[in-house]
């Protein structure tokens, strides 16, 4: 007899949650993340279509849920509301079909958006600085705060966002209730240093570590409460699912361990604990190689944290953090994009053998499923996980 959606949901979510708690489920959960536009590639939409039109994106992801019932969650990476972006005239992303060819995923264009003299102002009142300096600087329509043009820009953006959100909520409900399919992202927040590095100071943050270290530290400290609140609010819409942190600049080759310990870790840890204290799970995408930072992660509470590994040696990660934290990953991006099904299977087998013992292990690509991944490779990942990831028979 086929299972009801409730039963399917319980089975999938329970399997995932057991692994998150670093216990042993019936098999290794399979939660392929889609951070780019693979859902579109698969369903015959261009990146332009799924990025701009949320109904097409929903259709594409629903098709994945229908076609891959062996997955334990669906990840809708295209949670960008481009009509809202467009209404503000933002200049920090290049958009498919507008600045890029229609088949390319949206791209972040890094710039320096804060002058060094502004550090104090930022630390004094980060939100004020963001609203009065940052947005006017990066959004052509908001260049003059208080102007009629800015007012209309905000109005249009709010309208676009309401449409977007209004379409998403029923889709999310349908995925759970009709297909019994959980998601693997609830809310999101950021690491304080990455906020400064990514969007605010850009590359300059690296020389600031030497030129104005105290200012960097103060600025990081100043945004902790806001980032905790951000995680709690966005996570509050779907508290079953983890609050996501994408981590960019704390690892090899972007900072030494001494810098990590002084500038990255303290305020990041505080932010994460603040979100966890409110009852949330958290999930990190540790971009790049985190091999030398792993020990620090053990300071986080057991069973509350999922570490999605990119290019970190996952066997080493299992050894160092595997008793405390759930690890997710990490079929290499080039392998999924350019390799053969056999090679994918081999890799899945290898990491199952080395990492599944004792639970606390989830299967995913190192960067989720890359845009260019051929279907055979994704199928190979699915089949190999079912084959080698069984705990009991």
């Amino acid at each position: 007899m086929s299972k009801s959606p409730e039963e399917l949901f319980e089975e999938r979510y329970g399997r995932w949650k057991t692994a998150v708690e670093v216990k042993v489920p019936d098999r290794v959960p399979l939660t392929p993340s889609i951070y780019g536009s693979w859902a579109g590639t698969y369903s015959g939409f261009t990146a332009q279509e799924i990025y701009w039109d949320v109904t097409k994106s929903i259709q594409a992801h629903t098709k994945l849920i229908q076609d891959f019932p062996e997955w334990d969650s669906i990840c809708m990476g295209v949670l960008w509301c481009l009509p809202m972006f467009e209404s503000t005239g933002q200049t920090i992303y290049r958009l498919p079909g507008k600045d890029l060819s229609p088949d390319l995923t949206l791209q972040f264009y890094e710039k320096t958006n804060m002058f060094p003299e502004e550090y104090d102002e930022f630390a004094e009142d980060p939100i004020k600085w963001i609203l009065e300096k940052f947005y006017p600087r990066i959004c052509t329509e908001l260049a003059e705060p208080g102007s009629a043009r800015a007012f209309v820009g905000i109005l249009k953006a709010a309208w676009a966002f309401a449409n977007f959100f209004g379409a998403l909520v029923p889709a999310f409900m349908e995925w759970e209730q009709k297909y019994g399919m959980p998601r693997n992202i609830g809310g999101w927040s950021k690491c304080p240093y990455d906020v400064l590095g990514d969007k605010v100071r850009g590359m300059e943050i690296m020389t600031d570590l030497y030129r104005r270290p105290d200012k960097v530290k103060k600025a990081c400290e100043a945004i902790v409460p806001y980032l905790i609140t951000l995680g709690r609010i966005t996570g509050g819409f779907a508290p079953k699912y983890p609050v996501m942190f994408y981590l960019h600049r704390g690892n090899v080759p972007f900072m030494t361990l001494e810098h990590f310990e002084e500038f990255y870790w303290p305020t990041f840890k505080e932010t994460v604990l603040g979100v966890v204290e409110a009852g949330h799970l958290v999930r990190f995408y540790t971009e790049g190689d985190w091999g030398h930072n792993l020990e620090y992660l053990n300071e986080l509470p057991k069973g509350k944290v999922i570490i999605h590994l990119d290019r970190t040696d996952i066997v080493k990660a299992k050894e160092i953090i595997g008793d405390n934290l759930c690890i997710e990953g990490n079929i290499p991006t080039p392998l999924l994009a350019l390799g053969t099904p056999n090679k994918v299977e081999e890799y899945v087998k290898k990491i199952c053998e080395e990492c599944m013992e004792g639970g606390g292990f989830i299967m995913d690509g190192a960067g989720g499923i890359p845009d260019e991944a051929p279907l055979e490779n994704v199928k190979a990942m699915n089949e190999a996980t079912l084959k080698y990831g069984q705990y009991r028979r």
Partner: protein
Amino acid sequence: MEIDEICERLGETIVNMDFEGAKATVREAIEKKVPNETIIDCCAKGMQEVGRRYETREYFVPELIVAGDVMKEAMDVLKPYLDASDAKKKEKIVIGTIKGDLHDIGKNIFISLMESAGFEVFDLGIDVTEDTFIEKLKETGASILGMSSLITSTIEEIKVVVKELEKAGLRDKVKVIVGGSAVSEKFAQEVGADMYALDALAGVEKCKQLIET
């Protein structure tokens, strides 16, 4: 003797990312009549040590950038004392990140190591079109073209540039070196580049070998 000592200290100020120390030591060297060329060489040696430490993971990207800045500021102190006779004839290289690609951290590291190795570098920045590359090569008469590529979706652009070089009749005058994590030795051969380097230091070595032969 004293010159050697100053020289060594100057190199160390760069390795230690000591802005004030580097400028003061350059001033001291000028006073003690250390030849300009020697001062430049000492700074370059310091920068090469920084590059070595980067490749062995003692230093990371921030240290490379800051040491590069220290070197620049030290050179600014020396600039007013330089005259035409100090300007050795330098080998020229044009470099940029290819069209559609906005990554420049690795490219900039390669540039600062090339400069400290004595090359004259014309940096075209990021998202560089084939026309811009060709134009700059014609204008400068550079003998090397360096291209950086980190994303696979635009890597074909390297092929386009090499084709354009042929069309412009420059292919036998200009050696092409490619780097960045999207390219490989195999790819470099396929598109007809002359050299590939896994890291910046190796790239500098290859360019040096090229002009020695």
